C-alpha cells in the first residue's frame, strides 16, 4: 500500500493487486468467462468424477459390498464437487498459477450486476454475496423449522415418519448453525471492517473471496444430506450414532469440515486486516466496537475451527476406512467426539454472540446521540469473552460421565464468562441513560437484542449450575436458551445491522413502515414461540422428540402457531427488500442516520478503492455532543469535511476547525 509519511495515498484507478475493472465487451464474453454457471457445471462434473472414482476404488471392499452403501464414493463425490465448484468460479486460478511458477496475468474483473455472480476481490462485493448466501441457508433452515413445529402440534398424530422427522431436525440445526457462524462476520464484517478502519482493501482479498465460495459450497454439501437420506444425529453429531448412520452423515461431516475451512480463512483474513491495515492514527483505543468484536471473533474462528476440522476428519475416516476413533468397542472413545466437538462448539457460539454485541455497540450511540458509555469496558468484555470461551466446553458434558472433579471447575469458568458478557449490558444501559433516542428500525432491533439476550443469558446461568443442569440439560429449556441467545441475540442484531447499513451498501433506503411491521411481528412472535419452551423443558420434554406427554400439548401448540407467524414475519422483510431495493428504490443520502462512523464518511455507492485518500484518524467515532471533541478523521480534501459533532437541529453543517 503506497502510503506517504503523512498518511495520504495517491488515488489509483488500478488497485494494488493488479486488477482492472471493466464492463464485459459483449454478454457472450461475459457468459464464456468464469461465473456461478461454470461453477455449477464444474461442480457437477466433479461430483460425477468423484463418485465414479469412489466406486472404482472401494466397491470391492467387503464391508461396502455387503452394506450396499459406498461411503467412500459419497465422500469423494462431495469433495470433487467442491473442488470443481471452486475451480469453476475461478478461486483456484491464482494459487494454481503460483504453484506452477507462472506469474498470474493481470486479472480482469467485470463491473455491472454480473460481478455478484463471480469471484470478485472487492470486499464490498463479497459482503453482498455473503448476504445472499446467508439468507439461502437461513430460509432453508427456517422452512425445516416450520416442518418441525408442524410435527409437534400433536403428540399422537404424526405428519412425518419418525425417520424423516429426526432428519429434518438434524438438518435444521446444522444448516442454522452453519449459517449463524458467518451471518455477521461474512456480510457485515467483510463489508465494513476495511471501511471502519480506513483501509482500501482487506489484507487477503483472495482468501476472503475463497471463504465465501467455500461457504456457498457448504450449502450444497449439507443440502446433499437430504437426498442421501439425511442424518439422524442432530447438529451435535454424537458418535457412535454417527458411525451407525447412513451416507447422509458424510454430508454432515464433510460439510462441517468445509465450513470450518471457510471459517478459519475468514477469521485469519479479518484478524490480519484489523491488526495491520488500520489507517494512520487509528490506535486500539479508537477502533470502533464493531471492529473489536470482529477482531475477537476472528481469534476464535482461527483457533477453534481447526478442532472442528479434525473432529470431522476422524468421523469421516471412521465411516469410510473403518478406523475407530469414536468406536469404543474397538479401542476408540465416544467421548473423543464429544470433547473435540464441544471444544470447537463452545467458542463457536461465542463466534455467534460477539459480532451481535459489536453491532449493538455500534448502532446505539448513533440513535441515542450520546457517546458510547465505557468504551474500554466494551472492548475488555469482548476480549474476556473470547478468552474464557475456550475454558468452558465441558459444561455441555456435565451429565456425560466426565471426571466429576472437572465439574466444579467448569461450573466456575462458565459462571465467570457471564461477567464479560454483562459488560455489554453495562455499555448499552449506560449509553441509553438520559439519551435522546430515535426509534428507527435499527434501534428497535438493538433494544430487542438486549431484551432477548438478557433472557438467553440468564437462562444460561441456570444451565451452568450443575445441579439445576440435571433438570434442564437435554430438554426444551436448553433449546430455548440457545434460540434466545443465537436468534434473539445474533439474528436480531444482524437485522439491526442490515437495516442500519443497507443504505450505505446499496444506496437505497429501506421502507420504514415495512421495517417497523417486520420488527414488531418478528419480536412478538419470536418471544411467543420460545418463551413457553422454557416451561416445556422444565416439565420434562426432551429435545428432538416427535412425541411428548399429552398435558404439554397446549404449550407446544402455542409455540407452534407462534412459530408459523414468526416464519411469516420474514416475508415482510423479503417484501421490504424486494420493494425498496429492486422495484421502487428511493435513493438514500450518504449518511441517513447522521453517524460519526468512518464508513459513513464515504460517497454512495462506495468506489472500489473505498477512500480517495487514506484518512488520518483523530479520534474514535463516538464523541456525540462533546463540544471540543476532535473530528473523527482528516481526509485531507475540502469536499469531505467531517461532520461536526455539536450541530443542533436545523443548523446547517459548517466546516469545523481543525
Amino acid at each position, binding site marked *: 500500500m503506497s502510503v506517504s509519511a503523512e498518511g495520504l495515498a495517491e488515488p489509483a484507478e488500478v488497485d494494488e493487486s493488479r486488477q482492472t475493472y471493466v464492463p464485459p465487451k459483449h454478454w457472450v464474453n461475459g457468459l464464456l468467462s468464469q461465473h456461478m454457471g461454470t461453477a455449477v457445471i464444474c461442480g457437477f462434473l466433479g461430483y460425477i468424477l468423484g463418485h465414479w472414482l469412489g466406486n472404482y476404488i472401494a466397491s470391492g471392499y467387503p464391508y461396502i459390498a455387503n452394506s450396499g452403501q459406498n461411503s467412500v464414493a459419497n465422500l469423494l463425490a462431495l469433495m470433487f464437487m467442491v473442488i470443481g465448484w471452486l475451480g469453476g468460479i475461478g478461486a483456484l486460478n491464482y494459487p494454481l498459477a503460483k504453484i506452477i511458477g507462472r506469474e498470474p496475468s493481470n486479472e480482469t474483473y467485470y463491473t455491472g450486476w454480473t460481478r455478484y455472480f463471480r469471484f470478485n476481490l472487492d470486499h464490498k462485493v463479497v459482503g453482498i454475496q455473503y448476504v445472499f448466501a446467508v439468507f439461502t441457508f437461513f430460509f432453508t433452515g427456517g422452512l425445516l423449522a416450520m416442518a418441525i413445529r408442524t410435527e409437534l402440534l400433536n403428540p399422537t398424530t404424526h405428519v412425518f415418519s419418525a425417520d424423516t422427522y429426526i432428519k429434518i431436525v438434524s438438518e435444521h440445526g446444522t444448516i442454522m448453525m452453519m449459517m449463524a457462524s458467518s451471518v455477521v462476520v461474512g456480510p457485515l464484517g467483510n463489508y465494513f471492517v476495511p471501511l471502519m478502519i480506513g483501509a482500501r482493501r482487506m489484507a487477503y482479498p483472495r482468501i476472503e473471496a475463497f471463504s465465501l465460495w467455500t461457504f456457498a459450497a457448504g450449502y450444497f454439501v449439507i443440502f446433499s444430506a437430504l437426498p442421501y437420506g439425511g442424518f439422524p444425529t442432530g447438529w451435535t453429531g454424537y458418535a457412535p450414532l454417527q458411525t451407525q448412520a447412513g451416507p447422509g452423515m458424510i454430508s454432515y461431516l464433510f460439510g462441517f469440515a468445509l465450513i470450518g475451512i471457510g471459517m478459519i480463512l475468514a477469521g485469519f483474513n479479518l484478524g490480519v486486516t484489523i491488526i495491520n491495515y488500520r489507517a494512520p492514527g487509528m490506535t486500539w483505543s479508537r477502533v470502533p466496537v464493531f471492529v473489536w468484536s470482529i477482531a475477537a471473533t476472528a481469534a476464535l474462528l482461527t483457533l477453534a475451527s481447526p478442532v472442528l476440522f479434525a473432529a470431522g476428519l476422524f468421523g469421516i475416516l471412521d465411516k469410510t476406512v473403518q478406523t475407530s476413533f469414536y468406536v469404543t468397542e474397538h479401542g476408540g472413545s465416544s467421548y473423543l467426539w464429544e470433547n473435540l466437538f464441544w471444544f470447537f462448539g463452545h467458542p463457536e457460539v461465542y463466534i455467534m454472540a460477539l459480532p451481535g454485541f459489536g453491532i449493538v455497540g455500534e448502532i446505539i450511540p448513533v440513535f441515542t*446521540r450520546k457517546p458510547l458509555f465505557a468504551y474500554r469496558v466494551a472492548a475488555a468484555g469482548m476480549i474476556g469473552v473470547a478468552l474464557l470461551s475456550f475454558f468452558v466446553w465441558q459444561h455441555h458434558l456435565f451429565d456425560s460421565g466426565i471426571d*466429576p472433579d472437572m465439574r466444579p471447575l467448569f461450573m466456575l469458568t462458565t459462571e465467570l464468562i457471564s461477567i464479560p458478557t454483562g459488560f455489554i449490558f453495562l455499555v448499552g444501559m449506560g449509553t441509553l441513560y438520559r439519551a435522546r433516542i430515535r*426509534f428507527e428500525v435499527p434501534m428497535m432491533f438493538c433494544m430487542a437484542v438486549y431484551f432477548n439476550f438478557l433472557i438467553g443469558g440468564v437462562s444460561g446461568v441456570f444451565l451452568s449450575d450443575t445441579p439445576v443442569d440435571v433438570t434442564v440439560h437435554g430438554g426444551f429449556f436448553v433449546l430455548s436458551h440457545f434460540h434466545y441467545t443465537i436468534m434473539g441475540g445474533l439474528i436480531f442484531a444482524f437485522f439491526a445491522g442490515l437495516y442500519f447499513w443497507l443504505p450505505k451498501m446499496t444506496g437505497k433506503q429501506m421502507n420504514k413502515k415495512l421495517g417497523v411491521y417486520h420488527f414488531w411481528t418478528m419480536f412478538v412472535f419470536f418471544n411467543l414461540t420460545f418463551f413457553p419452551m422454557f416451561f416445556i423443558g422444565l416439565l420434562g420434554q426432551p429435545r*428432538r422428540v416427535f412425541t411428548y406427554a399429552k398435558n404439554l400439548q397446549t404449550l407446544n401448540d402455542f409455540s407452534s402457531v407462534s412459530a408459523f407467524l414468526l416464519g411469516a414475519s420474514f416475508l415482510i422483510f423479503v417484501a421490504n427488500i424486494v420493494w425498496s431495493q429492486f422495484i421502487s428504490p428511493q435513493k438514500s443520502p450518504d449518511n441517513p442516520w447522521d453517524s460519526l462512523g468512518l464508513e459513513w464518511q464515504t460517497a454512495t455507492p462506495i468506489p472500489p478503492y473505498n477512500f480517495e485518500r487514506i484518512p488520518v484518524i483523530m479520534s474514535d467515532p463516538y464523541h456525540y455532543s462533546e463540544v471540543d471533541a476532535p473530528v473523527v478523521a482528516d481526509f485531507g480534501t475540502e469536499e469531505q469535511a467531517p461532520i461536526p459533532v455539536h450541530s443542533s*437541529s436545523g443548523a446547517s453543517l459548517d466546516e469545523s476547525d481543525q
Partner: protein
Amino acid sequence: MAPENSSDNQPNHFRRIVYIWIVLSIVGDLLFWFLVGPHVPPGRMTTTATADQFDFNILAVIGLPVIIGVWEWLGYAVFNWSSKRKGHPESVGGVAAAGNKRAEVSWIVVTSVVVLFLAVFGTISLIAGQGSGAGEGPNPIWQPSGATQAETAAINGGGTWAPNKNQVLPVQVIAQQWKFTYRYPTFGGFESSYLILPNDTNIAFNVTSLDVIHSFWAYQLEVKADANPMENNVAFTKTQQLGSFEVRCSELCGIWHGAMFNSGNVVSQAAFEAWATKTEAANAQNTKYLPPFAWTYVPDANGASGGFYPDGTVTPYSPVESYGAKQSS
C-alpha cells in the same frame, strides 16, 4: 451517576430507577419464592429433586432482579428518554457521558460477587447432594455412605439388600436403541422393563449402553446420566416419597429417540422387597445362565456381554481378551 448538568431540572433518573427496581425485585422475589418455588419441577420425590429445586429457586431469586433491572431500564429509556424532536435530534451527554468510573467499577464488582457466589453455591450444592443426581462417570467421588461397599458387592457376586437396614441399592440401567431395562444385582441380576424402587433408600444407578449414547433421565427422581457404550456412569439419589415417575431418554439416539421412555414407581420398602424377591424367584431359571452383573456390555458374536460366561472363560471369539475375563471389583 450524578446528573451531568446541575442546572437542568430533570429528576434524578438513576435514583428513581433504583427505587422502583428495589421494590419490584423484592415483590417479585417474594412472589416467586412463596407462590412458584414450591411447585418448581421436578418436585420433591427424592433428595436430589428437593435440593435441585431449592438450587433453582435460589438462582431464580437472584436472576429475577437482574431481569427486572434491565427490562426496567429499557422500558424507562423507551418512555422517558426518546427524542422529542424529529429530524436532527440534539446530541447530549458530553464528555461526562463517555464513562463513569464509579458505575463501571460497581458493576464489575457486583457482577463478579454474584457470579462467584453462584459458582460456590453450585459447587456446595453439587457436593452436598452426592453429585445431585448427575452421572459421575465410573469413579464417582461424591456418594452416599455405603455406596462403595454395595457396588463392590454387586460386581463380585450380587450382594444383598434388605429393608430397614439403610443399605444402598445398586440398580443397573441398560440403555439400547430404543428401550431402557433395569437389572437388580442384589436380587440375582434379573432384568425388568419397569423401574421399581424402594422408598427412603439411597439408589446407585449404574448406567450403560449397548450401542449408541443415550441418556437416562428419571424426571421426578432428578437423575440424569448419559449412557455410553462400554462405560459405566454412576449417579445417586435417595427416594423420599411414594409415587410414579417417568423415565425419558434425553440424548438423541436415533429414529425412535422420542419414543424411548418408560415409567417406574417408588413403593414402600416392604412392597419393593416382596416384588423383587418374587421376580427373582420367577426368573431364577434364566438368571442362572446369565452372567452376573457386569458394568458394561459389549455385544459380539457370543452375546450381549461379549463372551462373558459364568465361569469366566475367555472365548476364542471375543475381540479383546479382557472382555471375557472375570471383572475385578
